[in-house]
C-alpha cells in the first residue's frame, strides 16, 4: 500500500502551549506544520505559498479567524480551513463554515480527533478532485453532469437546476468511495433518494441498501434494530435476530434522522464506525462487517452538536462528504419538470387524461414556497388527478393551501 502524502499544515494559534500540543499531535501523522501566532502572519504565509490545510484559531490577538477567512475570500486564496473554536462557541463555528471554512474543531480536542478531522477533509477533497475517468462509467449521475442535457434525470431525481447539478456532481464523485456521507435538507427534499443514488452508482450496488429511520423506531428497540439481538436478551426476544448492520454487510447502511438517536446509542454507533465490529444485544460474539455509512437529518447538525443532541465525535466521523439537498423553492424550473413528470405518472395510474399544466398553474407552482418540498408536490398532483377530470390542470383544481394563492382576476381569466 502506498504511503499517504505529506501534507503541509499552517497552524494559526496564539496560545503557545496549545500550538505545541497540536504540533506534537500531528507529528505521528503525515504532516509538516508551520506555526504562526497572528492573523496577519497567517495571511503573509499564504502569500508565500498555499498549504494543504489551515488550522485556524478563531480568537486571535490582532483579528478574528472570521476576518482571516473574509480576507482569504477577497484574495481568492483556495486553501481548506479547519477552524478551532472554544467550547460553547458553536455559533462561531457555524459562522466560520458559512464564511468558507471546511470544518471545525472544538477545544479541547485530542490527537485522534485532530487527525480524524484532517483525514476526513483530505478524503473529501480527493473525492471532489477525482477526474471523471475515475468515476463510475455510464452512471446516470455521470450522464446527467457530463452530457449537459436540457432535462436531467439522475437515478430517481428529476431536475437540472444549478443546486441539483451540484448534488449530482457530489453523488457521482462520492459513489466509488467508502467515505461516510452526511445528507442534510428539509423534509421531502429527497435525502433517502440521494443515499440510494450513491449506493446504486458505486461498487456496492449489488449488495444490500438498508435504510433505518431513527425517528420512527422506538428508542428502546433501536439498538436491537441496528445490531440485532440474541434470544433472551430482553422480554420478547424469543429468537436470535440480525439487525440492520448485519443485513447491510457488504453494502450500505443508511441512518435517516440520525439526530433523533439517543446519546448512549450514538456512543455505540461511534465505536461501531471506528471498529466496524459490534455485538448483538445480549450477545458476546464480536461480529465484523464491511459497511458504507450514509446518514441524514432534516436538522442543522452543528446546532444539534451545540445543543448536545448529536455527539461531536460522531459528527466528525460521519461528516466526511456532506450533501445538502436544496429545498424545492430554490430549484427554479425543476418544480415544473417534476410536476409534469408526476402528473403523467399519476394520470397513468389513475386512468385519467391529464397531460399538461396551465400557465397559471405553473405560475402558482413557481410562487408557492413548498414547505413540504417534493413530497408535498407529489401529494398536490395526486390530489388534482384523483379529484378532477380533463387534459389540462387549471387553477380551480388546486387544493389547499395553493388555492389561496389564486387571485380572483386570474381565476376569472382562466374560468
Amino acid at each position, binding site marked *: 500500500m502506498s504511503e499517504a502524502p505529506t501534507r503541509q499544515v499552517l497552524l494559526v494559534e*496564539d*496560545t*503557545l*502551549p*496549545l500550538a*505545541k*500540543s497540536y504540533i*506534537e*499531535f500531528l*507529528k*505521528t501523522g503525515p504532516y509538516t506544520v508551520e506555526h504562526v501566532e497572528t492573523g496577519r502572519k497567517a495571511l503573509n504565509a499564504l502569500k508565500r505559498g498555499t498549504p494543504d490545510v489551515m488550522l485556524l484559531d478563531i*480568537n486571535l*490577538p490582532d483579528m478574528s479567524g472570521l476576518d482571516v477567512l473574509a480576507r482569504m475570500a477577497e484574495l481568492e486564496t483556495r486553501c481548506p480551513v479547519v477552524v478551532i473554536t*472554544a*467550547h*460553547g462557541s458553536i455559533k462561531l463555528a457555524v459562522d466560520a463554515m458559512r464564511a468558507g471554512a471546511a470544518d471545525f474543531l472544538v*477545544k*479541547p*480536542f*485530542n*490527537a485522534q480527533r485532530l487527525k480524524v478531522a484532517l483525514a476526513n477533509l483530505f478524503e473529501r477533497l480527493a473525492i471532489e478532485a477525482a477526474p471523471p475517468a475515475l468515476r463510475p462509467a455510464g452512471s446516470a449521475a455521470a450522464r446527467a453532469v457530463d452530457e449537459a442535457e436540457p432535462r436531467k434525470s439522475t437515478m430517481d431525481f428529476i431536475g437540472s437546476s444549478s443546486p441539483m447539478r451540484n448534488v449530482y456532481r457530489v453523488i457521482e464523485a462520492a459513489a466509488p468511495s467508502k467515505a461516510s456521507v452526511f445528507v442534510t435538507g428539509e423534509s421531502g427534499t429527497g435525502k433517502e433518494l440521494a443515499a440510494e443514488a450513491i449506493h446504486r452508482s458505486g461498487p456496492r450496488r449489488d449488495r444490500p441498501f438498508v435504510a433505518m429511520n431513527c425517528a420512527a423506531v422506538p428508542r428502546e428497540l433501536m439498538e436491537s434494530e441496528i445490531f440485532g439481538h440474541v434470544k433472551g436478551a430482553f422480554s420478547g426476544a424469543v429468537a436470535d435476530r440480525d439487525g440492520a448492520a448485519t443485513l447491510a454487510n457488504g453494502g450500505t447502511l443508511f441512518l435517516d434522522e440520525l439526530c433523533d438517536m439517543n446519546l448512549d446509542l450514538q456512543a455505540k454507533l461511534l465505536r461501531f464506525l471506528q471498529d466496524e465490529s459490534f455485538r448483538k444485544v445480549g450477545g458476546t460474539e464480536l461480529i465484523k462487517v464491511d459497511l458504507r455509512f450514509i446518514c441524514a437529518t432534516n436538522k442543522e447538525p452543528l446546532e444539534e452538536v451545540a445543543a448536545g443532541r448529536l455527539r461531536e465525535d460522531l459528527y466528525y466521523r460521519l461528516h466526511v462528504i456532506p450533501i445538502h439537498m436544496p429545498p424545492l423553492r430554490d430549484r427554479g424550473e425543476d418544480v415544473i419538470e417534476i410536476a409534469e413528470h408526476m402528473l403523467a405518472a399519476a394520470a397513468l395510474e389513475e386512468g385519467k387524461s391529464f397531460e399538461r399544466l396551465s400557465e397559471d398553474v405553473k405560475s402558482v407552482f413557481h410562487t408557492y414556497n413548498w414547505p413540504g418540498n417534493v413530497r408535498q408536490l407529489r401529494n398536490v398532483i395526486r390530489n388534482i388527478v384523483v379529484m378532477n377530470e380533463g387534459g389540462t390542470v387549471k387553477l380551480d383544481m388546486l387544493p389547499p393551501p395553493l388555492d389561496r394563492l389564486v387571485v380572483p382576476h386570474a381565476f376569472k381569466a382562466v374560468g
Partner: protein
Amino acid sequence: MAPETADEDTLAPLRAHLDPKAFREIVALYETTVKSRAAAIEDAARIRDIEQMRRNAHDLAGMCGQLGSSHASAIARRIESACMAGQGDDALALVPDLTPAVAATLAQLAGYDR
C-alpha cells in the same frame, strides 16, 4: 462549588510518543504560561482592565481545558464570558475562585515530573 469531574487529559497520551526531554519541555511551557495568564488576570482585575482579563481568561480556559482541568477551565470561561458581556463586576467576583483551581492545575502538571 465542588470541582467538576476532570475531563480527558490530552497531554498525558503525548508522553508515550515523546522523548522525556521533549515532554518535560511541553509540560514546562504549560506551567509557565498557565501561571503567567493567571497572574495577568489578577493584575488586570486590580486595575479593572476588562479586555486584558478577557484575553487572558480565554487563553487560560483553552489551556486548562486541554489539560483536562475542567474546573479551572470553566471558571476562566465564565470570566471571559462576563467580560464579553460587559459584566465587569461579575468577572471580578470570579477571580478569587480561579486561584485554587489554577493551583490544582499546576499541581497536576507538577505530577508529570514524578
